[in-house]
């Protein structure tokens, strides 16, 4: 049997509204659960690390944890500081600091980076990402 046209159109309108609101509610519900599983999203970007100046000599490097990854601080010349991600841009190994040569060296595939992060040899496709450094008195702040 068929229903009256007015009833059918009314039904269609109601079903569509329910569907639209229901879909919106479902989409809105996904958001908190997504955020729940990503507790450090956003907050990590704001993170800074402070390192005491005594921990790093001229020509040496200091490794530390920064925003969930290994990072490194170097002092190529007195009072001149630079901070980089210590994660090699080739395949993600952690670079080491070669004080004699004054380069970052990746032990996995012999990638080489200069003290300002540029690629000077080996397979890495990109320079090491650098982080802003501010020096206040004896404190060096990264980030």
């Amino acid at each position, binding site marked *: 049997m068929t229903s009256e046209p007015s009833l059918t159109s009314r039904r269609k309108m109601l079903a569509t509204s*329910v569907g639209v609101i229901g879909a919106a509610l479902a989409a809105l519900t996904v958001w*908190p*659960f997504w*955020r*729940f*599983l*990503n*507790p450090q*999203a956003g907050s990590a970007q704001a993170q800074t690390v402070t390192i005491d100046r005594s921990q790093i000599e001229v020509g040496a490097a200091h490794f530390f944890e920064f925003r969930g990854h290994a990072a490194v601080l170097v002092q190529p010349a007195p009072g001149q500081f630079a901070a980089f991600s210590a994660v090699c841009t080739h395949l993600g190994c952690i670079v080491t600091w070669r004080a004699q040569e004054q380069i970052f060296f990746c032990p996995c595939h012999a990638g080489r980076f200069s003290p300002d992060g540029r690629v000077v040899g080996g397979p890495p496709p990109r320079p090491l990402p650098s982080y802003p450094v501010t020096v206040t008195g004896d404190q060096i702040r990264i980030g």
Partner: protein
Amino acid sequence: MGLKQRAFDWLDLRLGVRDILQQNLTHYLLPRNINVWYTLGATLLVLFSLQFITGIFLLVYYIPNTEQAFASVQRIMNDIPYGWLVRFLHATGSNVVILVLFLHMLSTLYMAAYKRPREITWIFGFLIFLVSLAMSLTGYLLPWSQLSYWATTVATESAGATPVIGEAMIHFLRGGPAVGEFTLGRFFALHVMGLPLIFALLAGGHLFCVRRIGVSRPPFGPDYLPEAPGTSFHHTDHSGGIPFFPNYVVKDLMVIAFFLTLLAAGAFFAPQLSLPPEAFEPADPFRTPPGIKPEWYFLAAYQLLRILPNEFLGLVVQGGAVAFLLFLPFIDRGPERRPGRRPLFLGLFIVGLAGFLILTVWGYLS
């Protein structure tokens, strides 16, 4: 339309989907005088699923260890984005689930839907109810708050009223003489694994029975007549009835949306109803908070234990009531289902319900 149609045809060719859908949706007919109480099963399915989902999410950050449990819940509430929402939904949800379980059970009793041939369905359902209470009780301990600790102490203590083996039972329930890390361990295992597994099996059994036997016809209206007891298996079909889809699904969805509204209102605006002040204080085995009370659904049992002269008598009465309800289909065996023609049952139903409500309010006030 083309792609959708083709995908459907592809599936239909392999699994006979069209047939399944027809049998279970459009050609699945329900009695014409079906009422709103029949939606509670579907509602419970949705609410329990939500408990499972929020529970699994809480499990991501919860630490089942007396040293860290409270702090991990604090972290969920304060540091994890929307952790407060997930926890409030889980806590409020447990209360809504119990409420709907009560309604589902009461309507089944009133309409005598537990009678032959649906005795097994009833038993599965009643066991689900008991398992749900056990899930509430075990979940209560996990946050390791003052409320958790003392509510569990009191609840397990009541087993001590059993003669001879009372002390041993308390010891067994707690895994030691007092509530402690072993209690938390066993309650945690039960709450997140043991009881949900039993629940899933029981729910599967319950649903199988419902579908296999067919929905009972509400015992109302001028043309209702009790079914004559059959001698062979017979699926109750309702020819000339209304199709499950779309007619009744819409009603199911409406009631589901109603209870979800209730849940959201509770979780956002009245979480205190599910979490009394002691729920936010860490457990302290050396300090009993004054006036601690069980959850609302245990208040009647709690008050009964208090007013009877002897605790063992209280346990016997409670055990008797549970056994009576569990085996009700085998005690109340007449084919008549119309409430008006079952004065004895109706009287018992009203007295029992009123007694439960009075005891609950009394327990709350005293």
